[in-house]
């Protein structure tokens, strides 16, 4: 097995690491790769969309799973697909949407592998309704560092299953995933937009209307202060049925207009994103999105607005950006959200993009991020002093009994992690059983002391 030394970055381009890349093309080669000498062990990697250091392994082996992307079985009547872990969401959509099946849960990009989605137990705009992707995973095939292959599900080896869903790729190399897809009639979403005046109205609208929609998410204007504080645009969506489509589209309900892909060819200079331009952007977005009902939007535009701008992460400049995403329990949720947004504003840390959504029950993944409450994601360009502000925000999350999302994180402290993931010892017990030598590692695992006893 030849490894390729390469500098890898997280999607936010802040976390960087020199790793030894392996790219197996046959399933057997994965086990073979794990037998190579690597002082820092191995980590599987999908398409590199984790924002921080979750898919980095400095001076260690990184196993690119992208070539193991074969569909193994599909049941047309039940919509259950079995495939290799390297299959991308884009590939699943392209293959099954024309037959009337869509992803049961999707994050904000389709350029990620199903294996990585399980490892992060990703959620989407339907979390309040359906929970995270773990709920739709029927079974997993896992290769342990010992070379043993294990099938696991809720019934079979449940400990391994729940440690792997949300387990950040550290419990074994996921080789196969059995996933329940969702039946849809069209490739379109009918969206109701509601523009709100302040945070109170934003949260109230969520609570009043959420249960009537499969999908919901809110864009927040995080720059607005005073009266408009916490104003935003809520987007409620449902899969459109055939008769929602204009007559001309009913013949081919799964065909959507092709979008021209654009790219950000160079790193934008840092001054491109300053408090003034951020304010302008947020203001323009707010004014151009009035409340409207029943707007027909294709699935790409609704779920993956940023996918059409390739390498959009370069817009944040050379130093990159971090996305800070937390979940806050409903109890005192409004109060804690206000504290977070106010603290960021007071410290002049203005996020370029802020997204809010309500979460439902956890899938049961031991290290899964979601819990009932509000989740808010803030994109910050990396600037001097930013991390001090984020440390302050972390404190609010700890006090609130919430936590940060590992798929996004690049900088929280091990103490914060240990304080906010109380089930860690339970996960560590499974880890000790499936990977006693600690072969599977990552920069994130070392930074957060994932394998060390909680103090």
């Amino acid at each position, binding site marked *: 097995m030849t490894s390729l030394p390469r500098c890898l970055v997280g999607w936010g381009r802040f976390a960087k690491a020199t790793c030894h890349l392996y790219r197996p093309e*046959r399933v057997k080669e994965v086990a073979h790769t794990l037998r190579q000498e690597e002082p820092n062990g191995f980590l599987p990697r999908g398409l590199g969309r984790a924002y921080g250091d979750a898919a980095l392994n400095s001076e260690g082996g990184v196993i690119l799973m992208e070539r193991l992307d*074969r569909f*193994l079985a599909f049941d047309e009547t039940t919509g259950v697909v079995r495939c290799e872990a390297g299959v991308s969401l884009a590939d699943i959509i392209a293959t099954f949407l024309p037959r009337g099946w869509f992803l049961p849960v999707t994050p904000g990009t389709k350029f990620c592998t199903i294996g990585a989605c399980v490892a992060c137990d990703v959620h989407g705009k339907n979390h309040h309704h359906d929970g995270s992707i773990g709920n739709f995973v029927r079974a997993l095939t896992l290769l342990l560092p010992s070379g043993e292959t294990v099938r696991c599900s809720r019934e079979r080896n449940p400990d391994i299953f729940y440690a792997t869903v949300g387990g950040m790729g550290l419990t074994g190399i996921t080789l196969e995933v059995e996933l329940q897809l969702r039946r849809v009639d069209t490739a379109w979403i009918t969206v109701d937009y509601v523009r709100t005046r302040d945070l109170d109205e934003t949260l109230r609208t969520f609570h009043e209307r959420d249960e009537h929609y499969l999908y919901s998410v809110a864009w927040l204007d995080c720059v607005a202060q005073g009266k408009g504080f916490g104003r935003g645009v809520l987007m409620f969506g449902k899969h459109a049925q055939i008769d929602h489509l204009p007559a001309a589209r009913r013949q081919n309900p799964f065909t959507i207009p092709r979008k021209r892909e654009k790219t950000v060819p160079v790193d934008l200079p840092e001054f491109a994103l300053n408090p003034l331009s951020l304010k302008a952007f947020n203001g323009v977005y707010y004014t151009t999105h009035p409340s409207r009902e029943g707007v027909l939007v294709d699935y790409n535009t609704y779920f993956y607005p940023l996918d059409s701008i390739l390498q959009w992460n370069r817009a944040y400049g050379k130093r990159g950006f971090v996305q800070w995403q937390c979940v806050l329990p409903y109890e005192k949720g409004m109060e804690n959200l206000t504290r977070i947004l106010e603290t960021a504003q007071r410290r002049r840390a203005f996020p370029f993009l802020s997204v809010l959504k309500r979460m439902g029950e956890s899938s049961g993944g031991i290290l899964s991020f979601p819990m009932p409450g509000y989740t808010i994601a803030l994109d910050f360009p990396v600037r001097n002093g930013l991390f001090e502000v984020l440390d302050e925000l972390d404190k609010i999350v700890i006090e609130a009994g919430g936590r940060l999302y590992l798929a996004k994180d690049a900088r929280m402290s091990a103490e914060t992690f240990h304080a906010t993931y109380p089930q860690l010892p339970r996960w560590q017990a499974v880890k000790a059983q499936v990977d006693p030598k600690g072969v599977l590692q990552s920069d994130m695992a070392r930074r957060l002391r994932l394998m060390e006893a909680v103090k």
Partner: protein
Amino acid sequence: MRRVLIAGATSPLARYMAHEFARLGDTLFLAARDSDELERIASDVRVRFGATVHTGRFDAAAVEEHEAFLQDVIRTLGGLEGVVWVAGTMDGLAEAFRTPQAVKRLIDVNFTGAASLLTLAACYFEEQGEGFIAGISSVAGDRGRGQNYPYGAAKGGFSLFLQGLRNRLSKRGVQVTTIKPGFIDTRMTWGRDKLPFLASPQRVARESVQAILGGKDIAYVPAIWWLVMLVIRAIPERVFKRMNI
């Protein structure tokens, strides 16, 4: 609908060539040594395209089994319209500079195996009066280079073999296509830095199948390699022997 045999079906190039044929509604017989991988690739083609895909174990180097193998393929498919030879290996290249066994192995798989199966296919198509044969050769077969000539010699031999076959069969309505890929982004090239015109296996597969179905005799894929090899072949031997390319 054609019935097509792909020999050496577990490489990424072969897999994506299978995709291209299946997309057009063809029925496939995929053959290779690694039966676990073979089944995965076959399932993938079935799930994606709803194609009929058969599989069978095939060892390129075991020429004594080729006749029975081809008969089995024809029986299973109920006929045959095309054979695509993709099998090839560069494993053992480093040893092949020193040890006869390693040279033999490279030639057995890359040349003898190919010539063996395609001879049988040629006779079948000649009799039938229609069909196509396509062989994945390599730009490495266009000129002997110090870095890879044991492999290049086998591929060069294969190119000549296909050329002769084409000359023999063109009068009988049988198409023979020689595909000469440059560097493909697979395990063969993984870990080698800065390879020129490195192409994805998807692209090479797409252009190869286009060349086959377009009735091309010789196709460099990507096409830029035609120009590159034109220049490389034009270098006088006096000069070339001192060069390190």
